[in-house]
């Protein structure tokens, strides 16, 4: 269908310092790129009507990076894209800070939009990262999504 690129040059990282969006965008630029779509996930000041003070993110770091790389490989397999940068913050985050930043570049815009959407949706569903929301009157681990069930055990033969 399309010339398959590999995820070898993609950039996946968990960071404890502010995400450098310009660096992520720069990483996916190239002469063959005609479209560059980014997703900037930002810490919001409320959750279901409660005022949020700040968030704390925790991850199963080695597995999270492995899953992010899996997402990149899937994207290259499915979409005619050039490159992906997928960065996620950990630790304490203030309102307005970027918690996740994804940049996808491609020769054409439709694939860049689709691939970026797929990347953030899949990250939120499958990458082992957790956020704790701190309110004025307490704190809770955000209701998350269950990762897809593992393959059913093989039937005895």
């Amino acid at each position: 269908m399309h010339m398959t690129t590999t995820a070898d040059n993609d950039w996946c990282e968990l960071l404890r310092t502010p995400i450098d969006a310009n660096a992520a965008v720069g990483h996916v630029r190239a002469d063959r790129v005609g479209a560059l779509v980014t997703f900037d996930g930002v810490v919001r000041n409320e959750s279901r009507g409660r005022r949020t003070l700040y968030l704390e993110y925790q991850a199963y770091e080695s597995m999270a990076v492995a899953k992010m790389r899996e997402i990149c490989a899937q994207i290259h397999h499915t979409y005619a894209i050039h490159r992906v940068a997928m960065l996620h913050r950990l630790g304490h985050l203030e309102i307005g800070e970027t918690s996740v930043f994804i940049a996808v570049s491609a020769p054409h815009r439709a694939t860049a939009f689709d691939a970026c959407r797929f990347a953030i949706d899949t990250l939120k569903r499958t990458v082992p990262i957790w956020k704790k929301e701190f309110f004025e009157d307490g704190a809770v681990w955000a209701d998350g999504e269950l990762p897809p069930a593992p393959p059913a055990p093989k039937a005895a033969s």
Partner: protein
Amino acid sequence: MALLAGPVPSGYNFPVPHVLPNLRVKVLLFARVRELTGIAEESVDLPAGATLSDLFEHYQKHFPALADLRSSLVASRNQELVSWDTPLSAGDDVAFLPPVSGG
């Protein structure tokens, strides 16, 4: 102890008592499971043949409140999601993952 009774065999060829080897795994706990147990990471010795379910029961014995979380958790072995009846091997990295909420 009975094995030690009687004359001690000499030479290289006396039989080694048959004992099922224990297996040691590394357990990693996150988010509400980490808070409930107060454990982030530890090594656990299990009898040979133990499964992820057995390991979870070991924790549930010490922390009964974990029972309420069980249905919301998925198990991972060496960074791959696996079913609860998966047998463990020495040196495995094991985790019980709450629903993820990154992004």
